[in-house]
């Protein structure tokens, strides 16, 4: 086929290198980020499934319908049923209200139980469950009953031997602060214990996994009644989830920016390619080819180029993701599904969409060249209007945004941002260019350089747009990368607490603090803990307040309440205010998300029952909480004095230099204090963040390469014009120095103005992205206003002058010759 041969010949002559490179970079960026986000997302889901104990969890007040079990079986879905209810457990003369959980073989379907051989032992995963006649108790229960492995406890009508300490239970909801003691026992012992009596508050929790889980979910969802709740693996663990969600959002955003930059490079190089071929197209027509045939040849060239370059991009993308994702997967300690073919498909599609959107106008132009152009170079060619080009490009951006995010709203925002930025840069750019004329007085070289800019505002405006949007994209991605990573680092600092301590009594408090400090530990503040249940909002019962909707999980049971006059450093008030020293008792601040879920307003009064008593407090503010900080955090913090009348224990978290040995020592010394090590989770979060940071950095490099491509493309586009003008200047006696300096003046000015526009755009865009997308605190990067123009001025100046040197160094005769061809 002639198109293929032409393509190969042009490619080997180097004419298509930049266009091909732009496609490769755009596709590689899209593929890498897509595979990264896709696989991290799946990793998170798998992780969340392990935390749920299965892919789906059904909670109901009665056993599951046999019909549903049959459905599950026919769909190949695994099932295990557990029964949960509160009951009093006794040891000697001590009794404790405990959450009992009855399990059968096969539990849990996803994730693993972790147990320890003694109170001070180290936890390890197991796939066993308690044997009949035995039970596993959690640290809280053993410390409250003051027992250890080997002791017996009375459970209903029978006695069970505690054989293991339950360290971790996958599907246990809630955070560290809302722990009730837990006892795990075998289903076989349920009947003889006679624990379940008419009127018992029993919860049947059925876990499902694998098979046609989606089909099964759809089936069950259509049959649920109001008392049954089905939960999927949508929310993972918040500590890890937050970091990963932000990382994937960042990757998508950065990937999209790279694609946009490469798109701009594709548009410019394709336009250049088209204008190089206008005469060729006319020539083809003189050979007797119809417009359609001419179009077919050029279109085939572009399509083949697109396929080949996109395939290269996909390969590069997959190789990079293997390096990046597999290292992340190792840290998630779960097996990842193999990378799917979807990102490859998406990568290829990216190639096509960018090529179509950004190069189609050029292609259409080529099929419309009248043959008379071979005689008359100035014969007008029907060029697609600027608006048409923008529409095509917008279509491409929109299609990519949607392909990428599957989110129409986000796509709309991206489109809007692109339109606003392009318009603003165009308008401000033109005004600035017009105002440059005073610079002409500096020297003859400056006069030529600046005139070059003023003479052709369309072309210099386009270059300005290319440079400033490139600088903006690079600045944005770099900014978010450094900010995100430093935010993560401050959220999970190296000295983050690695152990929680619960049940510290008033009389133990001083000794406990002393003991921790003597072991070289760092303590967070100690918070008094009182357990209470939310009953009323403004005097109405919670259920009525919520209009019959099920209340969020964290208030359905007793919640750990605290009071404090000091706002934790990982909390910040986003609505209302925190307490001041003049505030008395009777006020409360609520965690933001819970506040919204409860449909509260600032000024509402909430009522709690604490044992037999009631307490009411006015909501005066909401707090955003960084749960991943590992500091003690609470849904409700009351103003000092509110909880004073109630008996309380203390809770804190601390950093121990050697947690495994030291928790055992402290446990022995303070037997009633419960210690929970979070070292493993902390290490996991840190490891993930380190890898994600690497991934994020790789994307930054992509954006940089995209930026350089745009720069090169835009300068290459203007080369023929430059060559011609240099040739004329040289033939009129302009010295090399003059030409060199005027190029300096021109590019330096372009760079400085671009930097200024980019700083402006970055401030605007980062405000939007920080406050609306990432929920990070935003502050103006006013420093950028100073150094962005300097940096872009230097970069554009050096690269611009270097790339345009061709136009300077050739003898004028030669320049005039090629300028004419």
């Amino acid at each position, binding site marked *: 086929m*002639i198109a293929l*041969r*032409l393509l190969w*010949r*042009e490619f080997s*002559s180097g*004419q298509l290198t930049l266009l091909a490179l732009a496609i490769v970079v755009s596709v590689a960026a899209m593929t890498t980020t897509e595979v990264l986000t896709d696989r991290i997302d799946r990793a998170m889901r798998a992780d969340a499934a392990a935390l749920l104990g299965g892919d789906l969890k059904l909670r109901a007040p009665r056993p599951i319908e046999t019909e549903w079990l049959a459905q599950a079986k026919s769909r190949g879905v695994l099932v295990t049923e557990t029964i949960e209810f509160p009951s009093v457990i006794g040891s000697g003369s001590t009794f404790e209200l405990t959450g009992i959980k009855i399990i059968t073989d096969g539990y849990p379907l996803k994730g693993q139980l972790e147990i320890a051989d003694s109170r001070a032992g180290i936890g390890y995963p197991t796939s066993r469950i308690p044997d009949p006649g035995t039970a596993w108790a959690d640290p809280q229960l053993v410390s409250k009953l003051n027992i250890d492995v080997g002791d017996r406890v009375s459970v209903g009508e029978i006695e069970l031997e505690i054989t293991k300490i339950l360290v971790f239970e996958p599907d246990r909801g809630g955070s560290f602060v809302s722990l009730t003691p837990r006892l795990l026992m075998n289903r076989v012992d349920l009947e003889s214990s006679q624990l379940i009596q008419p009127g018992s508050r029993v919860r049947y929790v059925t876990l499902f996994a694998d098979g046609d889980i989606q089909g099964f979910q759809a089936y069950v969802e259509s049959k649920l009644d109001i008392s049954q709740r089905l939960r999927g693996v949508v929310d993972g663990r918040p500590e890890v989830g937050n970091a990963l969600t932000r990382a994937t959002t960042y990757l998508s955003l950065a990937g999209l920016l790279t694609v946009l930059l490469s798109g701009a490079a594709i548009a410019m190089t394709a336009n250049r390619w088209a204008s*190089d071929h206008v*005469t*060729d197209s006319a*020539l*083809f*027509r*003189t*050979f*007797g*080819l*119809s*417009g*359609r045939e001419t179009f077919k040849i050029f279109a085939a060239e572009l399509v083949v180029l697109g396929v080949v370059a996109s395939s290269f991009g996909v390969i590069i993308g997959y190789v990079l993701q293997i390096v990046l994702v597999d290292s992340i997967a190792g840290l998630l300690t779960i097996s990842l599904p193999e990378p799917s073919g979807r990102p490859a498909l998406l990568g290829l599609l990216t190639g096509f969409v960018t090529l179509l959107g950004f190069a189609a106008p050029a292609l259409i132009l080529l099929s419309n060249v*009248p*043959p*008379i152009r*071979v*005689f*008359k170079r100035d014969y007008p060619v029907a060029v697609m209007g600027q608006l048409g080009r923008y529409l095509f490009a917008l279509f491409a951006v929109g299609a990519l945004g949607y392909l990428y995010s599957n989110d129409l709203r986000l796509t709309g925002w991206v489109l809007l941002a692109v339109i606003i930025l392009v318009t603003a840069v165009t308008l401000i750019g033109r005004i600035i260019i017009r105002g440059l004329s005073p610079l002409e007085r500096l020297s003859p070289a400056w006069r030529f350089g600046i005139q070059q800019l003023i003479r052709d505002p369309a072309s210099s405006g386009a270059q300005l747009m290319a440079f400033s949007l490139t600088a903006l994209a690079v600045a944005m991605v770099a900014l978010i990368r450094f900010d995100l990573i430093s935010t993560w680092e401050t959220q999970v600092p190296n000295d983050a607490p690695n152990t929680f301590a619960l049940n510290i009594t008033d009389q133990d408090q001083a000794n406990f603090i002393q003991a921790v400090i003597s072991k070289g530990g760092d303590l967070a503040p100690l918070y008094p803990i009182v357990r209470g249940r939310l009953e009323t909002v403004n005097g109405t019962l919670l259920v009525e307040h919520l209009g019959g909707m099920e209340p969020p999980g964290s208030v359905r049971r007793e919640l750990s309440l605290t009071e404090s006059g000091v706002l934790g450093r990982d909390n910040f008030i986003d609505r209302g205010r925190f307490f001041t020293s003049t505030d008395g008792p009777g006020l409360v601040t609520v965690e933001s998300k819970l506040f919204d879920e409860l449909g509260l307003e600032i000024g509402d009064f909430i009522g709690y029952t604490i044992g037999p008593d009631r307490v009411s407090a006015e909501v005066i503010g909401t707090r955003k909480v960084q749960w991943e900080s590992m500091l003690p955090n609470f849904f409700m913090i009351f103003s000092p004095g509110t909880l004073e009348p109630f008996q309380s224990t203390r809770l804190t978290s601390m950093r121990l230099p050697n947690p495994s040995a030291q928790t055992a020592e402290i446990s022995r010394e303070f037997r009633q204090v419960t210690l929970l090590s979070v070292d493993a989770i902390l290490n996991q979060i840190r490891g993930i963040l380190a890898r994600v940071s690497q991934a994020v950095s790789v994307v930054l490099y992509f954006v940089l390469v995209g930026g350089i491509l745009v720069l090169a493309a835009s300068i290459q586009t203007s080369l023929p014009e430059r060559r011609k003008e240099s040739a004329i200047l040289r033939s009129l006696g302009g010295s090399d120095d003059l030409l060199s300096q005027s190029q300096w003046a021109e590019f330096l000015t372009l760079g400085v103005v671009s930097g200024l526009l980019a700083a402006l755009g970055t401030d605007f865009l980062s405000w939007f992205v920080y406050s609306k997308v990432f929920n990070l605190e935003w502050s103006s990067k006013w420093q950028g206003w100073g150094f962005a123009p300097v940096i872009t001025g230097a970069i554009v100046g050096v690269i611009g002058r270097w790339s345009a040197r061709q136009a300077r160094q050739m003898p004028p005769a030669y320049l005039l*010759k*090629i300028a*004419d*061809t």
Partner: protein
Amino acid sequence: MSHGFEDQTGHRLSVLESLELKINPGDSVAIVGPSGSGKSTLLSLLAGLDVPGSGDILFNGETFSGLTEDQRASIRRGRIGFVFQSFQLLQGLTALENVMLPLELMGLSVNESKQRSTSWLDRVGLEARIHHRPRMLSGGEQQRVAVARAFVNEPALLFADEPTGNLDRKTGESITELLFKLNRETGTTLILVTHDERLADQCRRILHLEDGQLNEVAG
């Protein structure tokens, strides 16, 4: 036929007025005249690259009027060749590939195109430079490539627009010589526009175009 343009103010400018011209197969015709007299416009009308404002042009009895550009292109296909003042070679292609192009566009195989093109490059004296790209060739050499390209599909009619216009005198002469030698050998009809009197003198007929009027000077 007559032909004109509208200027920016909407005023009609007449370039060619009531011309009548008949060119026989195997003729060689030079169109001369001052700059801006419409020589290139006349050439592009004769080649069917544009249509006259009024009147008609017939090629081998086939009319160009009332046809779309694509239909006119199909009449040109394989039967009309061009040589341009600025050569119009594809910069990315070698000399050989440039000459092969019209044959390949007509659907000939690569091998056959290559054979025929190589032999034509031989005939124009460029056998040693067939793998050079246009930028590595002198102006005269580039025009030789263009001439080889114009003759390679053995057209019935060859249009040349100032074929020596971009060349120095000596090179121009050698191109002129080549053009007429090939014209004689292949029996192609040759229509050329030129300022170059020596070139015009070699033609059997010379037509002078001025103020929209065409006058036969010699023939």
